[in-house]
């Protein structure tokens, strides 16, 4: 479903500030697979996701979605294939649009937008309200409220619904619970697992928590220094626990994991 081949990317190339963010990443994700991506700060997790979404272009290498090469496609061209939830709750929704308008915008993703009224008649509104009530966040009665008035958890849940409203090839979750309080984070995470399981979505989720990276999904990738360090799935993954990941990290890199957040959470 998704192939990243020999991906290289350096930010600010040729300057003293040059940062090699991806240094030869190869990744093949099968249809319906839920991959969690973990790594220290600067490991290249978010860069990899941004490259797949189209926000940054690779210096070298290729990206294929469902057999189609998209390496040089712009973000908006890929958007019909990719659903996306951002880290920052404010980033994935529009504060100045109502809940219903945000959903209507997502409902026309990938199709040519016309001068038809974006908000459909009663039928569409009821369908959206039904979808919202499934989130169980009390948003079904707030279709007309500005998204800016929602809580962080509500906005991420709305973002998630917007991302998964239409059929797509890949769902990208970029630390989408990192900015939430623990309660809301757990709710949104469970919601993500529920929706991806139900619709059998091919998913890439970056997380900062080793615990979550093993508890959710069916494949775990650990990145370090712009490369994929560790890739566990299937039966092998069932035997893994957080200390095993830490050990493996130490064995492969020769250093301890220094990112406290990775260990503690």
């Amino acid at each position: 479903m998704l192939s990243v081949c020999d991906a290289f990317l350096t930010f600010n190339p040729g300057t003293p500030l040059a940062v090699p963010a991806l240094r030869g990443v190869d990744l093949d994700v099968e249809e319906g697979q839920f991959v969690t991506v973990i790594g220290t700060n600067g490991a290249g997790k978010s860069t990899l996701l941004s490259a797949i979404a189209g926000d940054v272009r690779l210096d070298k290498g290729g990206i294929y979605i469902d057999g189609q090469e998209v390496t040089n496609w712009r973000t908006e061209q890929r958007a019909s294939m990719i659903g996306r939830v951002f880290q920052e709750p404010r980033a994935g929704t529009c504060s100045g649009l109502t809940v219903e308008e945000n959903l209507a915008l997502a409902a026309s993703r990938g199709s040519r937008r016309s001068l038809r009224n974006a908000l459909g008649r009663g039928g569409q509104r009821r369908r959206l309200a039904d979808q919202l009530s499934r989130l169980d966040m009390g948003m079904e009665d707030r279709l007309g409220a500005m998204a800016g008035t929602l809580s962080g958890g509500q906005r991420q849940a709305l973002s998630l619904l917007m991302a998964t409203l239409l059929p797509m090839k890949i769902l990208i979750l970029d630390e989408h619970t990192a900015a939430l309080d623990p309660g809301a984070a757990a709710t949104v995470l469970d919601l993500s697992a529920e929706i991806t399981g139900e619709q059998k979505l091919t998913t890439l989720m970056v997380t900062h928590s080793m615990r979550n990276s093993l508890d959710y999904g069916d494949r775990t990738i650990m990145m370090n220094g712009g490369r994929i360090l560790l890739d566990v799935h299937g039966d092998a993954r069932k035997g893994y626990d957080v200390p095993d990941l830490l050990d493996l990290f130490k064995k492969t890199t020769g250093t301890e994991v220094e990112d406290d957040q990775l260990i503690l959470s």
Partner: protein
Amino acid sequence: MSALAVAGAIEAGLLFSLVALGVYLSFRVLNFPDLTVDGSFPLGAAATAVAIIHGVNPFLATVIGTFAGCCAGFVSAFLNVRFRILNLLAGILTMVALYSINLRVMGRPNISLYGENTIFTAFEGVIDLGIWTTSAILLVFAIAMKLLVDWFLGTQVGLALRASGENPAMARAQSVSNGRMTIIGMSVSNALVGLAGSLFAQSQGVADVSLGIGTIVTGLAALIIGETLLGSTKVFWATLGCLIGALLYRLFIAAALSAGFLGIQAQDLNLVTAVVVAIAVILSQARRNSRFKFWPKMRSLLMDTQPQKG
């Protein structure tokens, strides 16, 4: 203030409400500080005036003026989107170029439409409200354009436009091309301004190359007054605010002029406009930024009181 002065102020207010609607689209919805307006307003006037003195039907001439404004907006947006020229500079470049273009279009610095057929003379046979006739016709235009903008921003394209202005990254992720939205929005915005210029020339009976100076500031003043009074979150109220803001602003100016308030004369208009906009912007920032306590400072200055010691 005489009835004639009031009628004049209302006419000007209604004309500038169209400019305010355009400025709302560019400055607020698209987040594009567009200075093309100072050029597209006289361009609309010039194109319409030239068409009319060549015997073109006034309604068609109005459409021509509107379309001319639309093209000006397109050029600014294209410079910004295609060649990545800073949005502010793109607008200024178009505005400067339009000064020469307007002179070329008219062939001279001004054209009088006195005695020519305009859409106002066309309507005079139908409705006759004395000195209020022009205001009535302009009111129809202003309300129609307000409703048109409301409708437009509620369509699928309109939603994409609003998202693109407010959150470009999110818009891209929803398959919105931000560049295309900038071009569409700027074209519509300046079409409204061109229409305002066209109606200005026809109602005042003259198109002048220096007509545009300060148009943007007046439009902004109307927009900000409207936002202060009616809020800016819902499109319906924001566009209504453009109408009411422009009317109030022109009535206030007319009152100040006729009362000889502070000795203000007609030539001081742009200065007064700039000062009003500056104060309005400062106040709206002060309200948003709680660390900048404007009123307590002002109060202590005005009342000359020392902070009380506890």
